[in-house]
Protein backbone atom coordinates (compact mmCIF):
# COMPACT_ATOMS: atom_id res chain seq x y z
CA UNK A 1 0.00 0.00 0.00
CA UNK A 2 1.27 3.44 -0.90
CA UNK A 3 2.10 5.76 1.96
CA UNK A 4 0.11 8.96 1.48
CA UNK A 5 2.12 12.06 0.89
CA UNK A 6 2.14 14.44 3.87
CA UNK A 7 1.04 17.42 1.80
CA UNK A 8 -1.73 15.31 0.30
CA UNK A 9 -2.83 14.32 3.76
CA UNK A 10 -2.99 17.94 4.91
CA UNK A 11 -5.00 18.91 1.86
CA UNK A 12 -7.33 16.05 2.69
CA UNK A 13 -7.89 17.37 6.21
CA UNK A 14 -8.49 20.85 4.87
CA UNK A 15 -11.02 19.46 2.43
CA UNK A 16 -12.86 17.59 5.17
CA UNK A 17 -12.96 20.69 7.38
CA UNK A 18 -14.33 22.75 4.52
CA UNK A 19 -16.94 20.19 3.61
CA UNK A 20 -18.11 20.11 7.21
CA UNK A 21 -18.39 23.85 7.43
CA UNK A 22 -19.81 24.70 4.01
CA UNK A 23 -23.44 24.31 4.98
CA UNK A 24 -22.90 26.45 8.04
CA UNK A 25 -21.23 29.14 5.93
CA UNK A 26 -24.03 29.23 3.38
CA UNK A 27 -26.81 29.19 5.99
CA UNK A 28 -25.04 31.99 7.85
CA UNK A 29 -24.74 34.12 4.71
CA UNK A 30 -28.44 33.62 4.03
CA UNK A 31 -29.47 34.58 7.59
CA UNK A 32 -29.86 38.35 6.91
CA UNK A 33 -32.23 37.76 4.00
CA UNK A 34 -32.62 36.23 0.59
CA UNK A 35 -29.78 36.15 -1.90
CA UNK A 36 -28.98 34.55 -5.26
CA UNK A 37 -26.12 32.18 -5.94
CA UNK A 38 -23.68 34.64 -7.44
CA UNK A 39 -24.33 37.08 -4.58
CA UNK A 40 -23.50 34.41 -2.00
CA UNK A 41 -20.26 33.50 -3.79
CA UNK A 42 -19.03 37.09 -3.91
CA UNK A 43 -20.17 37.82 -0.36
CA UNK A 44 -18.16 34.90 0.92
CA UNK A 45 -14.98 36.07 -0.81
CA UNK A 46 -15.44 39.65 0.42
CA UNK A 47 -16.23 38.77 4.03
CA UNK A 48 -13.23 36.51 4.47
CA UNK A 49 -10.79 38.33 2.21
CA UNK A 50 -10.49 35.11 0.27
CA UNK A 51 -9.17 33.18 3.27
CA UNK A 52 -12.11 30.82 3.06
CA UNK A 53 -11.62 30.16 -0.59
CA UNK A 54 -14.58 28.19 -1.81
CA UNK A 55 -14.81 27.63 -5.54
CA UNK A 56 -18.07 28.42 -7.29
CA UNK A 57 -18.38 24.76 -8.19
CA UNK A 58 -18.49 23.78 -4.51
CA UNK A 59 -21.15 26.28 -3.56
CA UNK A 60 -23.96 25.52 -5.99
CA UNK A 61 -24.28 21.84 -5.05
CA UNK A 62 -24.53 22.92 -1.39
CA UNK A 63 -27.44 25.21 -2.26
CA UNK A 64 -29.04 22.32 -4.14
CA UNK A 65 -28.60 20.07 -1.09
CA UNK A 66 -30.12 22.69 1.20
CA UNK A 67 -33.07 23.14 -1.12
CA UNK A 68 -33.67 19.37 -1.25
CA UNK A 69 -33.45 19.21 2.55
CA UNK A 70 -36.02 21.97 2.90
CA UNK A 71 -33.63 24.39 4.62
CA UNK A 72 -34.22 27.03 1.95
CA UNK A 73 -37.02 28.02 -0.38
CA UNK A 74 -36.33 29.41 -3.82
CA UNK A 75 -37.86 31.93 -6.15
CA UNK A 76 -36.90 32.85 -9.70
CA UNK A 77 -36.75 36.43 -10.79
CA UNK A 78 -35.90 37.86 -14.17
CA UNK A 79 -34.28 41.27 -14.00
CA UNK A 80 -35.12 43.74 -16.78
CA UNK A 81 -31.82 43.04 -18.43
CA UNK A 82 -30.12 39.71 -18.19
CA UNK A 83 -30.81 36.12 -17.26
CA UNK A 84 -33.18 34.86 -14.54
CA UNK A 85 -31.81 34.65 -11.01
CA UNK A 86 -32.60 32.01 -8.45
CA UNK A 87 -33.10 33.57 -5.01
CA UNK A 88 -32.67 31.54 -1.85
CA UNK A 89 -34.34 32.22 1.48
CA UNK A 90 -34.01 30.37 4.80
CA UNK A 91 -37.02 28.43 6.03
CA UNK A 92 -37.84 27.91 9.72
CA UNK A 93 -36.15 24.51 9.43
CA UNK A 94 -33.13 26.23 7.87
CA UNK A 95 -32.86 28.68 10.77
CA UNK A 96 -33.03 25.79 13.22
CA UNK A 97 -30.34 23.96 11.23
CA UNK A 98 -28.17 27.08 11.34
CA UNK A 99 -28.60 27.42 15.10
CA UNK A 100 -27.62 23.79 15.65
CA UNK A 101 -24.61 23.87 13.33
CA UNK A 102 -23.43 27.08 14.97
CA UNK A 103 -23.67 25.51 18.42
CA UNK A 104 -21.81 22.41 17.25
CA UNK A 105 -19.14 24.51 15.59
CA UNK A 106 -18.59 26.62 18.70
CA UNK A 107 -18.39 23.60 20.98
CA UNK A 108 -15.89 21.96 18.64
CA UNK A 109 -13.61 24.96 18.18
CA UNK A 110 -13.63 25.75 21.91
CA UNK A 111 -12.72 22.18 22.77
CA UNK A 112 -9.96 22.22 20.16
CA UNK A 113 -8.57 25.53 21.41
CA UNK A 114 -8.59 24.24 24.96
CA UNK A 115 -6.82 21.04 23.99
CA UNK A 116 -4.14 22.80 21.98
CA UNK A 117 -3.56 25.31 24.80
CA UNK A 118 -3.17 22.52 27.38
CA UNK A 119 -0.56 20.75 25.32
CA UNK A 120 1.43 23.97 24.91
CA UNK A 121 1.39 24.55 28.67
CA UNK A 122 2.66 21.08 29.59
CA UNK A 123 5.54 21.26 27.13
Amino acid at each position, binding site marked *: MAIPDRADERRGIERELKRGSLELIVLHLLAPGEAYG*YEIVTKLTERTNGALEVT*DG*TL*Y*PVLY*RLERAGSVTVRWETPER*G*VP*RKYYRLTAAGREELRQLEAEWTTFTQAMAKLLRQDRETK
Partner: protein
Amino acid sequence: MMTADEYIAIVIDRMPVDTPMRRQIADELRAHIDERTRQGHALADVLQQLGDPEKLAESYVAAIPLDVVSFGTRAAAKIIDAMLAIVPVAILCSVLAPKDIALPALVVGMGLLACPLFMFYTIIAESRTSQTFGKRLMGTRVVREEGTRITIGQAIVRQLPWLLQIFWIDAFFALFTERHQRAFELLSKTRVVSVSTQEAVS
Protein backbone atom coordinates in the same frame (compact mmCIF):
# COMPACT_ATOMS: atom_id res chain seq x y z
CA MET B 1 -12.02 25.96 -25.91
CA MET B 2 -15.24 24.93 -24.25
CA THR B 3 -18.27 27.23 -24.49
CA ALA B 4 -20.62 27.83 -21.56
CA ASP B 5 -23.34 25.79 -23.26
CA GLU B 6 -20.99 22.89 -23.84
CA TYR B 7 -19.88 22.97 -20.21
CA ILE B 8 -23.46 23.00 -18.91
CA ALA B 9 -24.43 20.26 -21.36
CA ILE B 10 -21.76 17.97 -19.91
CA VAL B 11 -22.86 18.65 -16.31
CA ILE B 12 -26.50 17.95 -17.14
CA ASP B 13 -25.70 14.94 -19.30
CA ARG B 14 -23.86 13.26 -16.42
CA MET B 15 -26.89 13.51 -14.14
CA PRO B 16 -29.45 10.69 -14.32
CA VAL B 17 -32.47 11.83 -16.35
CA ASP B 18 -34.73 11.63 -13.30
CA THR B 19 -32.49 13.97 -11.27
CA PRO B 20 -34.86 16.52 -9.71
CA MET B 21 -34.61 20.08 -11.03
CA ARG B 22 -32.18 19.18 -13.79
CA ARG B 23 -33.38 22.08 -15.95
CA GLN B 24 -33.19 24.51 -13.05
CA ILE B 25 -29.61 23.52 -12.37
CA ALA B 26 -28.76 24.30 -16.00
CA ASP B 27 -30.52 27.68 -15.80
CA GLU B 28 -28.75 28.62 -12.60
CA LEU B 29 -25.33 27.67 -13.94
CA ARG B 30 -26.03 29.65 -17.10
CA ALA B 31 -27.03 32.67 -15.00
CA HIS B 32 -23.88 32.32 -12.92
CA ILE B 33 -21.55 32.11 -15.92
CA ASP B 34 -23.36 35.01 -17.54
CA GLU B 35 -23.01 37.18 -14.44
CA ARG B 36 -19.34 36.36 -13.94
CA THR B 37 -18.44 37.09 -17.56
CA ARG B 38 -20.37 40.37 -17.46
CA GLN B 39 -18.27 41.33 -14.42
CA GLY B 40 -15.29 41.09 -16.75
CA HIS B 41 -13.99 37.60 -15.96
CA ALA B 42 -12.71 35.48 -18.82
CA LEU B 43 -14.92 32.51 -19.65
CA ALA B 44 -12.00 30.10 -19.20
CA ASP B 45 -11.47 31.37 -15.62
CA VAL B 46 -15.16 31.19 -14.83
CA LEU B 47 -15.35 27.57 -15.97
CA GLN B 48 -12.20 26.76 -14.05
CA GLN B 49 -13.80 28.16 -10.88
CA LEU B 50 -16.73 25.84 -11.47
CA GLY B 51 -14.33 22.94 -11.86
CA ASP B 52 -14.41 19.71 -13.82
CA PRO B 53 -18.00 19.35 -15.14
CA GLU B 54 -18.00 15.66 -14.28
CA LYS B 55 -17.05 16.44 -10.65
CA LEU B 56 -19.64 19.20 -10.48
CA ALA B 57 -22.35 16.78 -11.56
CA GLU B 58 -21.14 14.35 -8.89
CA SER B 59 -21.36 17.04 -6.18
CA TYR B 60 -24.93 17.83 -7.22
CA VAL B 61 -26.16 14.25 -7.22
CA ALA B 62 -24.42 13.62 -3.89
CA ALA B 63 -27.54 15.30 -2.43
CA ILE B 64 -29.63 12.37 -3.58
CA PRO B 65 -29.45 9.35 -1.26
CA LEU B 66 -28.35 6.05 -2.80
CA ASP B 67 -30.44 3.46 -1.00
CA VAL B 68 -29.59 -0.21 -1.28
CA VAL B 69 -32.22 -2.39 -2.95
CA SER B 70 -33.08 -5.86 -1.62
CA PHE B 71 -32.09 -8.94 -3.57
CA GLY B 72 -35.75 -9.92 -4.02
CA THR B 73 -36.70 -6.60 -5.60
CA ARG B 74 -33.74 -6.81 -7.95
CA ALA B 75 -34.62 -10.37 -8.94
CA ALA B 76 -38.23 -9.34 -9.60
CA ALA B 77 -37.11 -6.51 -11.89
CA LYS B 78 -34.84 -8.92 -13.74
CA ILE B 79 -37.62 -11.48 -14.20
CA ILE B 80 -39.94 -8.81 -15.63
CA ASP B 81 -37.23 -7.75 -18.10
CA ALA B 82 -36.52 -11.37 -19.04
CA MET B 83 -40.23 -11.92 -19.73
CA LEU B 84 -40.17 -8.87 -21.95
CA ALA B 85 -37.56 -10.57 -24.12
CA ILE B 86 -38.83 -14.16 -23.87
CA VAL B 87 -42.51 -13.59 -24.60
CA PRO B 88 -42.08 -12.00 -28.06
CA VAL B 89 -39.43 -14.59 -28.98
CA ALA B 90 -41.72 -17.41 -27.84
CA ILE B 91 -44.57 -16.05 -29.94
CA LEU B 92 -42.27 -15.66 -32.92
CA CYS B 93 -40.96 -19.23 -32.53
CA SER B 94 -44.42 -20.73 -32.17
CA VAL B 95 -45.32 -19.19 -35.49
CA LEU B 96 -42.10 -19.70 -37.43
CA ALA B 97 -40.43 -22.82 -35.98
CA PRO B 98 -41.00 -26.06 -37.90
CA LYS B 99 -43.60 -28.25 -36.23
CA ASP B 100 -41.36 -31.29 -35.89
CA ILE B 101 -38.48 -29.53 -34.06
CA ALA B 102 -37.19 -31.25 -30.90
CA LEU B 103 -37.96 -29.42 -27.66
CA PRO B 104 -34.32 -28.98 -26.52
CA ALA B 105 -33.46 -27.48 -29.89
CA LEU B 106 -36.41 -25.11 -29.60
CA VAL B 107 -35.38 -24.00 -26.11
CA VAL B 108 -31.76 -23.40 -27.16
CA GLY B 109 -32.96 -21.56 -30.23
CA MET B 110 -35.21 -19.31 -28.18
CA GLY B 111 -32.39 -18.64 -25.74
CA LEU B 112 -30.07 -17.68 -28.59
CA LEU B 113 -32.65 -15.17 -29.81
CA ALA B 114 -33.89 -13.83 -26.46
CA CYS B 115 -30.52 -13.39 -24.78
CA PRO B 116 -29.01 -10.86 -27.24
CA LEU B 117 -32.33 -9.03 -27.38
CA PHE B 118 -32.40 -8.82 -23.60
CA MET B 119 -28.77 -7.65 -23.39
CA PHE B 120 -29.20 -5.07 -26.12
CA TYR B 121 -32.37 -3.65 -24.58
CA THR B 122 -30.85 -3.50 -21.08
CA ILE B 123 -27.67 -1.78 -22.27
CA ILE B 124 -29.59 0.89 -24.18
CA ALA B 125 -32.21 1.46 -21.48
CA GLU B 126 -29.77 1.62 -18.57
CA SER B 127 -27.30 3.94 -20.27
CA ARG B 128 -30.00 6.30 -21.54
CA THR B 129 -32.60 6.43 -18.76
CA SER B 130 -30.95 4.53 -15.86
CA GLN B 131 -33.94 2.18 -15.88
CA THR B 132 -35.25 -0.84 -17.71
CA PHE B 133 -38.97 -1.56 -17.76
CA GLY B 134 -38.61 -3.99 -14.85
CA LYS B 135 -36.56 -1.51 -12.84
CA ARG B 136 -39.15 1.20 -13.46
CA LEU B 137 -41.94 -1.07 -12.21
CA MET B 138 -39.93 -2.11 -9.14
CA GLY B 139 -38.80 1.46 -8.35
CA THR B 140 -35.09 0.95 -8.87
CA ARG B 141 -32.46 2.57 -11.08
CA VAL B 142 -28.83 2.05 -11.92
CA VAL B 143 -26.16 4.69 -11.31
CA ARG B 144 -22.39 4.95 -11.05
CA GLU B 145 -21.08 4.56 -7.53
CA GLU B 146 -20.83 8.38 -7.43
CA GLY B 147 -24.53 8.68 -8.26
CA THR B 148 -24.08 9.99 -11.80
CA ARG B 149 -25.43 8.42 -14.99
CA ILE B 150 -23.70 5.28 -16.21
CA THR B 151 -21.79 5.36 -19.49
CA ILE B 152 -22.50 3.01 -22.39
CA GLY B 153 -19.23 1.22 -21.56
CA GLN B 154 -20.35 0.56 -18.01
CA ALA B 155 -23.74 -0.59 -19.27
CA ILE B 156 -21.98 -3.12 -21.52
CA VAL B 157 -19.74 -4.43 -18.72
CA ARG B 158 -22.86 -4.90 -16.56
CA GLN B 159 -24.28 -7.32 -19.16
CA LEU B 160 -21.07 -9.28 -19.81
CA PRO B 161 -22.04 -12.11 -17.40
CA TRP B 162 -24.82 -13.08 -19.84
CA LEU B 163 -22.39 -13.24 -22.71
CA LEU B 164 -19.90 -15.23 -20.63
CA GLN B 165 -22.63 -17.52 -19.32
CA ILE B 166 -21.71 -16.83 -15.70
CA PHE B 167 -24.81 -14.91 -14.75
CA TRP B 168 -25.72 -17.12 -11.79
CA ILE B 169 -22.29 -16.86 -10.20
CA ASP B 170 -22.29 -13.13 -10.81
CA ALA B 171 -25.75 -12.64 -9.28
CA PHE B 172 -24.73 -14.79 -6.31
CA PHE B 173 -22.33 -12.02 -5.27
CA ALA B 174 -25.27 -9.68 -4.70
CA LEU B 175 -26.40 -11.84 -1.79
CA PHE B 176 -23.23 -11.22 0.17
CA THR B 177 -21.68 -7.91 -0.87
CA GLU B 178 -22.26 -4.90 1.31
CA ARG B 179 -24.38 -2.92 -1.13
CA HIS B 180 -25.87 -6.00 -2.82
CA GLN B 181 -23.67 -5.53 -5.85
CA ARG B 182 -23.08 -8.23 -8.43
CA ALA B 183 -19.45 -9.04 -9.27
CA PHE B 184 -19.73 -7.20 -12.57
CA GLU B 185 -21.29 -4.24 -10.81
CA LEU B 186 -18.27 -4.04 -8.54
CA LEU B 187 -16.13 -4.27 -11.65
CA SER B 188 -18.03 -1.57 -13.55
CA LYS B 189 -18.37 0.59 -10.40
CA THR B 190 -22.14 0.78 -10.79
CA ARG B 191 -24.97 0.25 -8.33
CA VAL B 192 -28.68 -0.40 -8.34
CA VAL B 193 -30.43 1.96 -5.94
CA SER B 194 -34.02 2.72 -5.11
CA VAL B 195 -35.92 5.62 -6.59
CA SER B 196 -36.70 7.53 -3.43
CA THR B 197 -40.30 8.60 -2.88
CA GLN B 198 -39.10 12.16 -2.40
CA GLU B 199 -37.79 12.15 -5.94
CA ALA B 200 -40.92 10.74 -7.46
CA VAL B 201 -42.79 13.78 -6.14
CA SER B 202 -40.55 16.52 -7.50
